[in-house]
């Protein structure tokens, strides 16, 4: 791998380290350990070795011809992060951070998880490196992602249910931060997305940037050119940042992040802070945020547990404000339809999170509003969602309802 020098703690105005004083030394220690690791060829070689031999990289870039026919845009390539060990992009980050924990001599790991994919990826890395592992998960998410709870336990992790607040990812993150404040001396917090205080957004992005580096090379090999559009779903924003990073300097490549609109923008039940939030401070960084007029964090909602979060990584806020990336959103129903459509078209069951990106491309393709070639980050596989979606009934199977569900971001000059 290669990484960015650890320098500024901000992306434009966004990011920073808004945490209790107790955590400052641990963040300093982590930034220093990361800088040292980047300068150590043995560390970089070990990350590369594990990527190739354990995670299963490079992942394929697959041309989805039947999806193209449905969407009316071609070519469309899927970057197959679902084929990573454990079934999502999350493991790119957890293997790297677990190695960092080892370098810092921290025997205990904590993590938060929404969909359970980050929890599984963390539990996996902890098994691999023989680290103690505690995963915080909202009680509602434990219900809707029960398969992953069982996987984490098999892998030797302790899953602690979080009953406070909205009982989802936000509250799991609060609880993980409280654990870290209490046990910071022997514990490393493997945060699961490009969120949190500096240097987390930078470290997670660097470990995920392998996605875009590979995709860029792969599409050039088959198409002889760069993609016109690069698309990814955005929860905290790690698969999107990982996919975007290698293309940020390529002015001709449109970067499109797809947020979860839940029941719809303006319904009060969405997870789309870039589309309808405003800047604020949560979980250690300044970024767009769903909040009320008094600065209280508003509850988020999405059918996809991994997107069900009121905040977003600070680098996305910067990319939106500068106009370099564009952020759109997709409602629950459209995402569920995309989740049900892809298996029959391509033999691939996508995660509900990923289905948001697929739904937006299909919709934009039908409207002729997306330029090809398109590269979509297929961030994870959907085994974990099968039970939950089957319980939702066939509400999502109905006929396409004239564009309802896929919407443009209203907020910010970048949309």
């Amino acid at each position, binding site marked *: 791998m290669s990484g960015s020098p650890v320098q500024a703690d901000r992306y434009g105005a966004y990011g*920073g*380290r*808004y*945490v*209790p*004083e*107790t*955590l*400052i*030394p*641990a963040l300093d220690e982590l930034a220093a350990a990361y800088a040292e690791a980047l300068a150590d060829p043995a560390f970089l070689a070990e990350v590369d070795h594990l990527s190739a031999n354990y995670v299963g990289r490079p992942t394929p870039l697959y041309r989805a011809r039947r999806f193209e026919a449905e969407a009316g845009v071609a070519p469309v390539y899927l970057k197959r992060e679902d084929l990573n060990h454990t079934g999502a992009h999350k493991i790119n980050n957890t293997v790297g951070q677990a190695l960092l924990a080892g370098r810092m001599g921290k025997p205990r790991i904590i993590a938060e998880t929404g969909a359970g994919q980050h929890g599984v990826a963390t539990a996996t890395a902890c098994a691999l490196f023989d680290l103690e592992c505690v995963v915080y998960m909202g009680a509602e998410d434990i219900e809707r992602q029960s398969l992953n709870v069982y996987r984490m336990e098999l892998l030797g992790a302790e899953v602690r249910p979080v009953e*406070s*607040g909205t009982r989802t990812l*936000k*509250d799991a993150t*609060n609880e993980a*931060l*409280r654990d870290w*404040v*209490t*046990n*910071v*001396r022997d514990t490393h917090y493997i945060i699961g997305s490009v969120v949190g205080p500096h240097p987390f957004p930078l470290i997670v992005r660097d470990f995920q940037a392998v996605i875009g580096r590979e995709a860029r090379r792969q599409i050039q090999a088959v198409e002889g050119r760069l993609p016109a559009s690069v698309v990814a779903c955005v929860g905290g924003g790690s698969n999107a940042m990982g996919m975007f990073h290698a293309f940020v300097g390529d002015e001709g490549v449109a970067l499109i992040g797809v947020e979860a609109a839940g029941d719809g923008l303006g319904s009060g039940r969405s997870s789309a802070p870039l589309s309808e939030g405003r800047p*604020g*401070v*949560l*979980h*250690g960084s*300044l970024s767009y*945020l769903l*909040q009320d*007029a*008094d*600065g*209280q*964090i508003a509850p988020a909602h999405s059918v996809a547990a991994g997107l069900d979060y009121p905040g977003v990584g600070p680098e996305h806020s910067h990319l939106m404000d500068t106009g370099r990336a564009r952020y759109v959103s997709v409602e629950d129903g459209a995402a569920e339809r995309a989740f049900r459509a892809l298996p029959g078209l391509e033999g691939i069951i996508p995660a509900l999170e990923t289905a948001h990106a697929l739904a937006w491309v299909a919709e934009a393709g039908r409207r002729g509003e997306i330029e090809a070639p398109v590269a979509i980050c297929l961030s994870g596989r959907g085994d974990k969602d099968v039970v939950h979606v089957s319980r939702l009934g066939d509400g999502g199977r109905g006929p396409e309802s004239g564009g309802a569900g896929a919407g443009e971001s209203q907020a910010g000059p970048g949309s």
Partner: protein
Amino acid sequence: MSGPPPGRIGARFEALAAQGRRGFIPYVTTGYPSLAHTRELVAGLAEGGADVIELGIPFSDPMADGPTIQRSSQGALDQGTTVDDVFDVLAELRRASDVPVVIFSYLNPVFSRGVETFVREAIEAGADGVLPTDLPLGADPELEAGLLESRLDLVRLAAPTTTPERVAQIARSSQGFVYYIARTGVTGARRELRGELAREVGAVRSVSSLPVAVGFGVSTAEHARAVGAAADAAVVGSALVDRLDEGGVAGALALARELREALDEVG
């Protein structure tokens, strides 16, 4: 360092020092279990010997707080408590009392209002200081400058994990007093205080020209005496909230009296 003229907080600590007494600093979650309770409680605390009151703005995501203050914060928000309510409670208290008041908040409610507006409204209501839990030294120099240059004291926190060099920087930059966090962890009542506390507080006092208050876990008269022996003031939060749940305002005020008396046994 605190700009001249010394505000109410500085004056209060000077008076305490002159009398050889230790300060008592109760924390209150505004709006829990109701605004009426908070009004009665802060009035009683002001009369009953509080030297500074930490008036808390409840926040939806209190990541530095344990179960007790999570519960009181959520309870206050369920009651619909707003930042305006906090200022109203303060303004009413101010009509009856001169007790110094520090607004205790997570950063986002302050940030959301705009720091300038927040500071102006807080001063109008009668606040003397502000203590943002998630604004450590150096996190946001521009925002910090806005608070440091205002007439509100910016009270800074130091923790057991803070390096000695950083403790010195925090002590130099804090205003009113320095808040030393008694343990590595979140807020919440505890049975025991840590044995190393006295030595650590001594280290903070040796580099600080400001008074040092100690909080997080201080719950009983015995704790108050131990803190009083080492520091200039004791902050008590979760234990008061717990007592408020068990015995109402009268119960919380009874605990406050006990703690006040315990601190006066030191000196």
